[in-house]
C-alpha cells in the first residue's frame, strides 16, 4: 500500500492526467445518459471538479481543494495558473483579429463597467450587512470584483483582516458560481457570439470563472471572453483603492 501511494505521489502530474481523464469520461457518460446531452459533458466535469474541490478542502482544511491530498497534488500543476494561461493563449490560435477590433469599444467599456458595477454592488451588500465604514465597504466591493482585487484594496485602505477574508470569500463565491451558472444563463443574456463573450469576460472579470464558465457553455467563445477578463484584475487593482475608494469615502463619510 505504501509503495502504491509513494509511486502515485512521485508521479503526481500523471495521476492528475489520469484523474481528469476519468472525470471527463464519467461526465460525458452522465451527460448522455442522465441529461440526454442537454447539459454538456464539460459543464458536468467542472461541477464535479468543484464538488471534489469542496470535499478535498473540507477534509484537509487546505486552500487548494483536491490538490491538498498529496496524491492529487499534480492537479495543482495541471490546473495552476501557468498551464491554465498557456492553454487560454493557445485557444486564441486562429481567432479572427478583426472580430476583436470590431468589438473593441464593447470590450473596453465592459471592463470599466464590470469593475465599477461589482464594486458598487459589493459595497451596497456590505452596508446592508452592517459594514458601513468606507474601508470595509470598499474592500468587500473590491472582493466582489475578484478575490485578488479584494485583498489588494483592503491592504491599501487599511481594512481589518476579517473584512479582507470576507472579500476573498465573496470573490471565490463569484468565481465558483460563474463557472457553474454560465451555461444556464447563457441563453438569457444571448451569450452565443464573440462580441457577447467579450462583454461577458470584461463584466465578470474572474479569469478562472470566465475560463470555466465559457468552456462549459461553448469552447469557441473562450478566447474572446478570456481576452477581456485578463485586463479586469489589473484595472480593478488600479481603480479600487484609488478613485472608487475616494468616491465612496466622500459619499459615506
Amino acid at each position, binding site marked *: 500500500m505504501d509503495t502504491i501511494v509513494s509511486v502515485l505521489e512521485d508521479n503526481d502530474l500523471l495521476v492528475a492526467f489520469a484523474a481528469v481523464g476519468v472525470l471527463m469520461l464519467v461526465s460525458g457518460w452522465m451527460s448522455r445518459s442522465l441529461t440526454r446531452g442537454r447539459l454538456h459533458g*464539460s459543464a458536468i466535469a467542472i461541477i464535479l471538479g468543484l464538488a471534489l474541490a469542496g470535499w478535498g478542502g473540507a477534509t484537509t*482544511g487546505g486552500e487548494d481543494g483536491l490538490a491538498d491530498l498529496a496524491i492529487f497534488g499534480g492537479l495543482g500543476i495541471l490546473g495552476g495558473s501557468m498551464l491554465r494561461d498557456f492553454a487560454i493563449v493557445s485557444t486564441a490560435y486562429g481567432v479572427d483579429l478583426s472580430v476583436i477590433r470590431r468589438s473593441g469599444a*464593447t470590450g473596453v467599456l465592459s471592463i470599466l463597467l464590470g469593475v465599477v458595477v461589482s464594486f458598487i454592488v459589493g459595497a451596497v451588500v456590505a452596508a446592508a450587512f452592517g459594514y458601513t465604514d468606507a474601508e470595509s465597504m470598499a474592500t468587500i466591493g473590491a472582493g466582489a470584483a475578484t478575490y485578488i482585487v479584494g485583498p489588494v484594496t483592503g491592504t491599501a485602505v487599511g481594512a481589518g483582516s476579517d473584512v479582507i477574508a470576507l472579500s476573498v470569500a465573496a470573490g471565490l463565491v463569484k468565481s465558483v458560481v460563474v463557472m457553474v451558472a454560465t451555461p444556464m444563463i447563457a441563453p438569457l443574456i444571448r451569450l452565443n457570439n464573440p462580441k457577447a463573450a467579450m462583454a461577458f469576460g470584461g463584466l465578470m472579470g474572474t479569469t478562472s470563472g470566465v475560463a470555466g464558465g465559457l468552456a462549459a457553455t461553448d469552447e469557441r467563445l473562450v478566447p474572446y471572453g478570456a481576452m477581456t477578463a485578463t485586463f479586469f484584475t489589473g484595472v480593478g487593482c488600479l481603480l479600487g483603492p484609488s478613485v472608487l475608494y475616494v468616491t465612496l469615502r466622500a459619499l459615506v463619510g
Partner: protein
Amino acid sequence: MVVYGVAALALCLLIGELIGEALGIAVGVDANVGGVGFAMILLVLVTDRLRRRGLFPESSERGVMFWSSMYIPIVVAMASTQNVAEALTGGPMAIVAGLAALVAAAALVPVLARIGPPDDPLPPREAGDDARLAGSARTKEA
C-alpha cells in the same frame, strides 16, 4: 517540428506576461495588467505572419492545437483545486455579495453587446472535440 509550435506559444505567453507586469508597474498596481490578453494578440499576429511566409507548417501548428485541445481538461483540473470550502464558509454576506455582483454584471452583457454592429450567433457546435477540429480547418482555409 511540433516543439516549434509549443515554443512559439510559450514565448508569446512569456512576452505577454512581461508586458503585463511592466504595465502594472507603470500604473503603480501590484498586479499583472492583461498579460494573457497581450500574449493572445501576439500569438495571432506572429503565427499569421509566419504562416503567410510558410514558416509555420502543420507540424508546428499541432504543437499549439494540442494545448488548445487540453484546455477543457486543464479547466476541470483548475475547478478541482479551487478553494470551494472557503467560498462556502464565508457566510451569507460573502455569498450574497458574490451572487449579486454576478447577476448585475450578467444583466449588462446584452446591453454592451448591442454597441456597434451586431454579431451573429456561432453556428451550432458539433459534439466534443469535433468543434475544435472544425475550427482549425477553418483557419487553414483562411
